C-alpha cells in the first residue's frame, strides 16, 4: 500500500531551502484512530441526548457520574501501569475492596482519618510488592498481580467472613457520598481532581517523563541511567493510591462495604484505558484519553440500561466495543508504519 504522499518543500532554515522532506498525508484511518475517542465520545453524547429518553436530565447525569467515579479513578491510576508497558494491574480488585472495607469497618474504632491512614498503609504495601516484583525481579505484571489479588482477596474474605459493613446513617462517610455541588455529586469532583493531578504528574514531572520513556523503550531508558525498577514501583504505587481513593468513594456512595464490592474492576478499568486510545504496548497515552474512555463506557452502560437492554447484551456490546476500538488502533499503527 503506497501512501498518498506529496513531496513538499519544508520551510527554509536560515534562509536555505531544505529539500527532500516528504510529508505523509495522514490516511483516514490514522486520523480517525488518533482522534477516535474524542469523536466517538462526542458522537455518543450527542446521540444520547437526542435519542435516549431522559438521558439529559440532571438525575441521570448524576447516575452517569456515579457509574464513572470509582471505576474512573481506578482507570486513571491504571494508566500509569499501562503506559509503563506493564499491561494491567489485576490486584486493583482486592485493593478497592480492602480500602472500602477498612474505611467502614475501622472508622468506628479509629475515626475516619485513622481508618484512611491504615488503608493507605495497605495500598502502599500492594504497590511496593507489585512494583518490586515487576520492576526489580522482572516478573510478568499480569501473573504477579494475579498472585497478589488472589492472596489479598483471600485474606480479606477470611477476615471479614462476608460481612456487609455499613456506616452510621448520616455519618461523615454517608454525608460525603450524598453530598452535591450544584447538580454534581462530590465524587465527580474527586474524579476530576484525581485526573488533573495524575495528568500533571504524567506530563509535567520528571517522573512522568521517565514512565513514558520506560514504556516506550525499556533498554534505552535503563542505559540512560534511570533506575527503571524505581520507575515501575512508582507506577504501581500510584495505581494503588488511586485504587484506595476509589475504594473510599465507592464505600461512601452506598455507605456499605463488602469484600466482593469491586468485582470486575480490573478489566473494566483496563477497558476504559484502552478505549481511550492509550496503547497497550506502552509509551503513548494520556490521562485525558483515559478520562474520555471512562466517560464513553459509563455513558454506554447507562444508555443500554435506559434503553432496556439485558445484562447479556450489555456484556456483548462492551466486548464488541473493546474489540472495535483496539482493532482501529492496530490498523492505524500499521498504516503509520508504511
Amino acid at each position: 500500500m503506497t501512501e498518498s504522499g506529496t513531496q513538499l518543500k519544508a520551510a527554509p532554515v536560515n534562509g536555505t531551502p531544505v529539500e527532500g522532506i516528504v510529508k505523509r498525508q495522514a490516511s483516514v484511518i490514522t486520523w480517525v484512530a488518533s482522534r477516535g475517542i474524542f469523536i466517538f465520545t462526542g458522537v455518543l453524547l450527542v446521540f444520547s441526548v437526542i435519542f435516549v429518553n431522559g438521558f439529559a436530565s440532571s438525575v441521570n447525569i448524576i447516575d452517569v457520574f456515579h457509574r464513572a467515579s470509582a471505576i474512573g479513578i481506578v482507570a486513571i491510576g491504571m494508566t500509569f501501569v499501562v503506559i509503563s508497558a506493564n499491561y494491567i494491574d489485576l490486584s486493583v480488585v482486592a485493593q478497592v475492596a480492602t480500602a472500602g472495607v477498612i474505611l467502614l469497618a475501622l472508622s468506628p474504632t479509629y475515626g475516619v482519618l485513622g481508618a484512611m491512614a491504615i488503608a493507605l498503609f495497605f495500598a502502599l504495601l500492594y504497590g511496593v510488592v507489585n512494583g518490586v516484583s515487576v520492576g526489580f525481579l522482572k516478573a510478568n505484571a499480569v501473573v504477579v498481580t494475579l498472585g497478589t489479588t488472589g492472596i489479598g482477596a483471600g485474606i480479606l474474605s477470611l477476615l471479614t467472613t462476608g460481612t456487609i459493613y455499613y456506616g452510621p446513617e448520616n455519618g461523615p462517610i454517608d454525608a460525603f457520598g450524598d453530598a452535591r455541588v450544584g447538580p454534581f455529586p462530590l465524587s465527580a469532583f474527586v474524579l476530576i481532581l484525581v485526573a488533573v493531578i495524575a495528568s500533571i504528574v504524567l506530563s509535567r514531572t520528571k517522573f512522568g517523563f521517565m514512565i513514558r520513556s520506560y514504556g516506550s523503550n525499556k533498554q534505552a531508558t535503563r542505559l540512560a541511567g534511570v533506575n527503571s525498577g524505581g520507575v515501575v514501583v512508582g507506577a504501581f504505587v500510584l495505581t494503588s493510591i488511586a485504587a484506595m481513593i476509589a475504594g473510599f468513594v465507592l464505600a461512601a456512595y452506598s455507605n456499605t462495604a463488602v469484600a466482593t464490592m469491586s468485582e470486575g474492576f480490573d478489566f473494566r478499568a483496563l477497558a476504559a484505558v484502552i478505549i481511550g486510545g492509550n496503547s497497550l504496548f506502552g509509551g503513548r497515552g494520556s490521562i485525558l484519553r483515559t478520562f474520555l474512555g471512562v466517560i464513553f463506557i459509563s455513558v454506554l452502560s447507562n444508555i443500554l440500561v435506559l434503553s432496556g437492554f439485558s445484562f447479556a447484551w450489555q456484556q456483548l456490546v462492551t466486548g464488541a466495543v473493546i474489540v472495535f476500538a483496539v482493532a482501529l488502533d492496530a490498523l492505524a499503527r500499521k498504516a503509520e508504519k508504511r
Partner: protein
Amino acid sequence: MRNSRTVLVSVFAVAGLALSGCASGGTDDAGAASADGYNVYALLPQGNDQPYGTNYLKAMNAAAAEMGVNLTITNAEYDAAKQANECSVAIASKPDGIILWPAAVDTIRPCLEAAKAAGIPVNASNSDVLPEDKDLVGTYTGPSNEEVGRGAAKLIGDVLGDAGGSIIIIQGLSGNSTAIDREAGFRDELEASYPNVEVIGQQPGDWAKDVALTVTSELFTSLGEENIDAIYAVDDTMAAGAIEAMENRGIDPTTIPVVGTGNTELGQPNVLSGKQYATLFQSPVWDGENAVKYIVEAIEGNTLEANYFMPIPEVTKENAADYPAEW
C-alpha cells in the same frame, strides 16, 4: 545461582508445610466412621463469602457440635464443575452422610447417582433438586427459593390490589441459581394469581447496594417515575439500594412499595421505619440447623418426609420486631 534457588525453595517448602498444617489442623478428615460421632460432608455453593452463608455455617457448626457430628465443609462458589469435583472428593472420603446445597440444580444428577451407588445418604438443603431427581435424595430441608419468590409476588399483588399496576424487578446476580429461582417463582405467581400486575422493566443489581442504587435510578429515568407502582428487589441489600435511589430523587419511599427478601440487618430497619413495605424472613439459622438435624435422621435410618419446608413469614412494619435480623 543454585544457592539462591535452593534457599528460595527451602523457604517455600517450610512455608508450604506450615500452611498446609494450619489448613488441615482445624478440621477432622472424614475417614471411616469414628466412635465419637458421624462424619458428614457439606457440599455448599457459598460460605463465609456471603452474609447468608456465614450465618448458615455458624448455625450448622453449632448444631453439629451439639449432636457430635464431624463436619467437612466445601465452598464451590456457584461453580458447578467445582462442586462436581468436590462431590467426588466427598464420596471418596466415605462419610456417613452428605448435605448437598446445589450450585446448579440441573447439574447434580451425576453426583447424586454416584452417592447412591456408594450407599451414602444425601439430603438437599436450601435449594431443592429437580422433581426427576427427588428419589435420589432422602429429604429436602430449606426455604425453596421459588416459594420465596411466590411469597414476594403475593405481597406485591395484595398491596397493589385489584387495580394492579406496573412494577420493576431488581434482579440478583446474573446466572446465580438463587436469583433465577426466586424470580421464576415470583413471575409464575404473578401470572397465575395477579394478572393485572405487569413487569415493565428489570435489571440485575448483583446483590449489591450500589449497583441496585444506580440501576433503580436509571430504570426510573427510562420508564418514568409516574409509571412505576411497586418494586420487587430480590434481596434486602438491593432493596435498600432501591430505596436510597428513590430518596435521592426526592420520592417518598412509602409511596412506592418495595418488597425485598431476607429480613437482613440492612432490611429490617427499613421495614420498621416503613420505607420498605415488606420482606420475607428467610432464616439461615433454621436452614443450617435443620440440614444437620435431618442428615442425622437419614443416617440413623428413620423415615423422612419428602420435604421439610422452612416457614417464610411475611414481615411488615407491624410484626418486624418479632423476627430477628439474622444476616
